[in-house]
């Protein structure tokens, strides 16, 4: 029964996608839209085949993915222990609160000029944009996650002889991990916005660069192809992330 209904929804989704793409194709073929503004799906597909052939599409996609992953990993690896520490210490929370409050509202875009000035058009500059864009919000997610822990579990751990550090490592970290992962999933999406905007402004490769470059040469199909690739890549990463999540949280199964 369950498989039947899943298959049914999947069929409906595929049909709906086909209708949408066909309608788009027809509207373009019948000349209702100027191809410069909106090329037909078939044009985008031809562009994709051409760019896969000369290796550019893969190169741009991998460049952006690598930047997101490196920046996001560094940001998470710093934010998780720091967030857990702040979530369990009233004193240090008060110390760092003003700084976090100042950093949090800054969009990653606003760091681009400064980062270019400091680091130039380099990979490090790209990583730093992803880091600055995702660190403060990740930190807040993690601090919030630590508050969801049942205080009784902390009490029980201390009663069994756990020190403050033991409580952080053995109770607060695993206890808030489901929420941390949920938060990081959202942050991964934000990391992508960071990198695309950074690449739109200044880069020599990457999907953002590809989109901007396409626009410069009036290749609207390249622009749209770049956008489609962002969607597809984020979707693939989301699936991988979900597999990884199940591995990390065996007790929630």
């Amino acid at each position, binding site marked *: 029964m369950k498989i039947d209904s899943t298959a049914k929804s999947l069929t409906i989704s595929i049909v709906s996608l086909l209708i949408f793409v066909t309608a788009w194709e027809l509207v373009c073929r019948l000349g209702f839209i100027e191809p410069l503004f909106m090329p037909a799906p078939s044009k985008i597909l031809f562009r994709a085949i051409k760019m896969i052939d000369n290796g550019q599409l893969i190169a741009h996609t991998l460049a952006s993915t690598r930047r997101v992953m490196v920046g996001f990993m560094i940001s998470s690896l710093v934010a998780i222990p720091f967030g857990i520490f702040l979530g369990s210490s009233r004193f240090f929370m008060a110390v760092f609160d003003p700084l976090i409050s100042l950093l949090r509202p800054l969009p990653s875009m606003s760091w681009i000029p400064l980062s270019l000035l400091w680091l130039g058009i380099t990979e490090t500059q790209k990583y730093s944009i992803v880091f600055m864009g995702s660190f403060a919000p990740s930190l807040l997610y993690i601090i919030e996650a630590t508050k969801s822990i*049942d205080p*009784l*579990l902390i*009490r*029980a*751990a*201390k*009663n*069994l*002889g*756990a*020190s403050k550090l*033991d409580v952080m490592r*053995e*109770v607060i970290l*695993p*206890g808030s*991990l489901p929420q941390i992962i949920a938060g990081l999933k959202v942050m991964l999406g934000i990391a992508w916005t960071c990198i695309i905007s950074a690449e739109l402004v200044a880069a020599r490769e990457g999907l953002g660069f590809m989109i901007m470059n396409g626009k410069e040469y009036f290749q609207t199909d390249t622009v749209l192809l770049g956008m489609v690739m962002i969607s597809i890549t984020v979707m693939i990463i989301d699936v991988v992330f979900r597999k990884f999540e199940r591995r990390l*949280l*065996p*007790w929630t199964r």
Partner: protein
Amino acid sequence: MDTLTNGTKISIQGVTKIFSGKRDEVIALKELSMDVQDGEFIVIVGASGCGKTTLINLVAGFEAPTHGQIILDGQPVTGITPECGMIFQQYALFPWKTVQQNVEFGMKMKRMPQKERQERAARFIDIVGLKGFERSYPHHLSGGMKQRVSIARSLANDPKVLLLDEPFAALDAMTRQVLQEQLVRIYEKHRKTIIFITHSIDEALLLSSRIVVMTARPGRIAQEIVNDLPHPRNADVQLSNRYMELKRTIWDSVQAEVMKSMEVETH
């Protein structure tokens, strides 16, 4: 010194506990004193809200008394101590740890070598009858099984005193009876000092060597009764005249306190 020679394990000395809220203060316990001898099985009975849980939390060191002090083995209790193993009504198992890992927790905190603590945990899992469930996560277990894991976790940590805060209150009658019998067997074998909180007079009579009845808030001791019922406390004992007599005595004093606390609430 003489408290030690008497074999006094815990001495509660003139303890008052006041909780200050924003607008008012609640006196949970007032000048409460009692001694618990080594190897005693004390059951504290009282109406809800009489400060039983507050008292046990003070003994465990979760909270500090406003006045007075609690002495454990001649030393004042100043913080949370693993010497007093606590068993909570809500089990308080770590959901992300298996049964085995939960039972190993206290030993891991003591940095006991892995092999040693695995063997010791296995032994206590066996004692509470959960062999075969070592790799299960708590959410796959029933309430009774969870509480058995919690008991094994405490025992494996080898505390001097076991504190149980209405541990079986959330369980169905049959599971409760099985666990009560299991607890008595464990008590007879390991001779830990036990403080057990309940609002069930039958549970108190079945388990205790001494029963302490607490007054309505502010909590003080209304009555102490040495439970001289013979062991094992089977159906025959539960139908005996002595059992009925003790039950009536306790019920009379608990009832009086319940009435008092209800009057306070309606005013």
